[in-house]
């Protein structure tokens, strides 16, 4: 049976917990696009024209939406665009893919020394912290201004043109980070663990403080990307599900209240929210079942990495759309037949009644075998017809 809906319509049905012509399929493609399109990581982060061109060369592995790699625009959902990358990420090797080069990654380090000072003086206390000795002061003001004001529009226009040319909607228009994830980046997991047990009131205070910054910046990005005009740009991609190894008690006390508040802020402002929550949230599903409370139907997707999808469907089915979760290693080390079988099982467990998008575990690795991604797309057509 051939598709009878557009990609956007198909996804919309899933968001609204309705059956479509078939199960939507939307592997998240990030670093694999520039890799297959033969552009460097550096180009991926600085040349939206080349990134979009590379994306057009990969249409055979793209499902019902495309990740516009907002991370390249705002670098992991941090506040400013012009300087945070220098503070938080390891950008040492931009040209190559592993093992000769690194993907941009966070180094665990304590960047925030004093929560009170940050709340009192703002993030400039981190951005211009000379102790970090990261070359931030070597950048000139024109560079900052260009990346703050001009570059986002150039970036958005490149993706707007892609959507017009291909009819493929965007996965997101803006990206927001949960306060606890930000603390993990800025304090390091070990220090954050210590803070949670020793100064919980300060962790709560700064989480509350982060919310406004992060929600407003993500919504600004989505507007620049064309929310309301470009299909998919109205979606906020809300990462990352908190630091690994939270117990349900820590999740409930330190993660959930701020997650719910941010989701509510986005939806009440007219946006949709794609909750990209890594780790295993199976123990937290009963709490997550309240994510859509007080909100209009069809505004939330729960994108799970290691969470048990069968259990997720049992607990969240009929409440929010769920997304996931073909394992990363299967794309690289499995065969198309194995991918097909895994997708068949996921569809059997999650698709009944609608409200399911067949997806990847976090993102498809850059070294995935393209034939395995194509097998996933085919599986949605083979087994996902309603």
């Amino acid at each position: 049976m051939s598709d009878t809906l557009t990609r956007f319509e198909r996804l919309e049905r899933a968001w609204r917990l309705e059956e479509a012509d078939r199960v939507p399929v939307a592997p998240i493609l990030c670093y694999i696009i520039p890799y297959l399109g033969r552009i460097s990581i550096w180009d991926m982060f600085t040349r939206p024209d080349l990134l979009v061109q590379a994306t057009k060369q990969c249409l055979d592995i793209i499902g019902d939406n495309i990740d516009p790699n907002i991370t390249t625009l705002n670098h992991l959902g941090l506040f400013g665009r012009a300087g945070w990358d220098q503070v938080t990420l390891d950008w040492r090797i931009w040209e190559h893919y592993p093992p000769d080069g690194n993907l941009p990654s966070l180094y665990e380090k304590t960047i925030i020394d004093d929560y009170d000072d940050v709340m009192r003086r703002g993030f400039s206390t981190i951005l211009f912290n000379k102790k970090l000795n990261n070359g931030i002061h070597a950048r000139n003001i024109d560079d900052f201004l260009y990346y703050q004001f001009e570059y986002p529009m150039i970036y958005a226009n490149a993706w707007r043109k892609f959507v017009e040319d291909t009819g493929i909607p965007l996965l997101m228009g803006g990206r927001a980070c949960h306060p606890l994830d930000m603390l993990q980046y800025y304090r390091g997991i070990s220090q954050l663990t210590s803070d949670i047990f020793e100064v919980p009131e300060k962790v709560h205070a700064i989480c509350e403080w982060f919310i406004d910054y992060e929600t407003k910046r993500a919504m600004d990005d989505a507007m620049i990307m064309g929310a309301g005009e470009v299909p998919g740009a109205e979606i906020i991609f809300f990462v990352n599900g908190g630091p690994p190894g939270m117990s349900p008690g820590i999740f409930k006390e330190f993660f959930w209240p701020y997650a719910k508040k941010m989701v509510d802020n986005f939806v009440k402002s007219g946006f949709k929210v794609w909750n990209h929550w890594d780790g295993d949230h199976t123990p937290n599903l009963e709490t997550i079942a309240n994510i859509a409370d007080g909100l209009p139907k069809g505004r939330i997707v729960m994108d799970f990495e290691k969470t048990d999808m069968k259990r997720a469907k049992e607990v969240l089915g009929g409440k929010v759309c769920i997304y996931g979760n073909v394992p990363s290693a299967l794309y690289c080390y499995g065969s198309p037949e194995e991918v097909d079988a895994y997708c068949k099982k996921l569809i059997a467990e999650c698709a009944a009644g609608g409200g399911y998008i067949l997806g990847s575990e976090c993102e498809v690795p850059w070294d995935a075998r393209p034939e395995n991604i194509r097998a996933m797309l085919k599986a949605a057509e083979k087994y996902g017809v309603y």
Partner: protein
Amino acid sequence: MGKLSEAIAVLDKQGVLQAVEEGIAANLDPLLMIDEARFGLEVVGEKFDRGEYFLMELMRAAQIFQSAAGLLAPKIEEFHGKVQAKGKVLLGTVAGDIHDLGKNIVKILLECRGIEVIDLGVDVRTQKFVKAVEEYQPDVIGLSALLTASVAEMNKVVEALEQAGLRKAVKVIVGGGIVGEIQRSALKADHATIDANEGVRTIEGWIDERAIQVA
């Protein structure tokens, strides 16, 4: 269970430090106190295995243990002189990968068990591992990774150890989220795990076994 191990088991830092200070004041053997604190850590590990505690609790327990060990270290030297580590482990995240969360957790857990750790850091090239094995002669080498591409790098390290004639001298354990998704037969290490607690127990078991053989 004594007061010290009980306090560690419930993650009560103040209780642990108080018990240690009382023990010091009573002139108790600090090594016996360390053993009792380690027993508390074992209880925490069991709770972790049963799903009662999660990774953050495991890390918290190790942090508390280290605070206690910090108070006891000078007393140990006073009582016993310099105490030999029970074994030596070389850790590193393989080339092309800079994820170090799992490695750092394993490091702190090993140190709590009295095992010396040489941490080579992240993005460690194969030959650096080989040279470090030659230089430090560890009992165990632990390779960490998160990325799919790192699996091949882990195997390269094992092959390089074989080529250098060092493979039989060390046990090799690989860890990190990605190894849990790979068929065991595709990995050349002696053991693979995604569970820091289980990995540390395996390493400790190997070191104990080796100590018995040497004896």
